């Protein structure tokens, strides 16, 4: 910040951001028993993790560089994810998945 925002104004902005995060994270949890959703919706929410994480992962892989899509098979991030997926197909060991994925990604970045 070249014209530094500091002191009270910055503290207030940080607390405001903290509150907006707290409100979203605790919304339904705090409402508790009063916020029971319709049964269909509540069962649908079991797909929330799969769908949200995929929606985070896919742009991370294909639109990483300056927000332009890179669908090339030589995209290092795609190579990294594919290596990780191959690992997961025969092992549930996450550390191995991370190590293999990062290695494949780094090698692809260096040599492709």
């Amino acid at each position, binding site marked *: 910040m070249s014209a530094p925002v500091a002191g009270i104004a910055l503290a207030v902005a940080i607390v405001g*951001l903290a509150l907006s995060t707290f409100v979203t994270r605790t919304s339904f949890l705090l409402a508790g028993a009063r916020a029971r959703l319709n049964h269909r919706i509540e069962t649908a929410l079991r*797909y929330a993790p799969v769908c949200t994480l995929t929606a985070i992962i896919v742009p991370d892989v294909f639109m990483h560089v300056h927000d332009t899509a890179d669908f090339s098979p030589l995209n290092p991030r795609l190579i990294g994810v594919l290596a990780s997926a191959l690992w997961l197909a025969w092992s549930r060991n996450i550390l191995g998945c991370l190590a293999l994925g990062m290695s494949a990604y780094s090698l692809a970045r260096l040599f492709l």
Partner: protein
Amino acid sequence: MIPTDPERRAAFHAGQRAILQSLPGSAAWGLVSGVAMVKGGLAVPWAIMMSLLVYAGSAQLAALPLIAAGMPLWVIVATGLITNLRFVIYSAALRPYFAAEPLRKRAALGFFMTDFTFTLFMRSAQDGTLPERHRDAWFAGVCTNNWITWQVCAITGIVAASYVPTDWGLEFTGTLALVALVGPSLNARPALVGALVAGVVALLAHGLPYRLGLFVAAIAGIVAATLADSWSAPRAPQESGAAP
């Protein structure tokens, strides 16, 4: 914070163990977000305060340029609310599991809930590895390890910003940790359909600001998965893995 009752303590430790292997992902994202805070112009003590109070990397990074530009408070709060919309979905999904807990505990579990901890909880609930009792203690164990890892790495990144390499793609470890969490869930058609739709919509809506594309994609994916579910298994027996 660690429960004294032996059974609850066992559940807490089981939660701590459950997230252990995913922690490199949190570590990488924490580190990179700490560096970005400082490179974005935030002085070290303020960056540490923000990391401790907000504990949400994407919201922090979205709000930072607005704070730097001296935007009014309501703009910053609105940006935080929009960037964090996915947490409302998470909160709704967790609600049935914790509705019976006291208010203070629900507030605490909500504060410490992140993409990683939420996904791990839901996956464990679905594949039956969640303990029958003391799920709050189990989740607290998961969240404790994730929080410590994130904060230690974020503060390291803040303090040592100029020494952390930013061109190695370290943050990709976080993406891969999500792949490891989500991969095993893609073993049935509804989940595959949901993931496919969510992924395509996320790409198409990537231009939307403040991670709105992510929110839209998640909703589209959840709807698609539910439709696929009702078509592929007409009147299947009620899910046994569902909430109590």
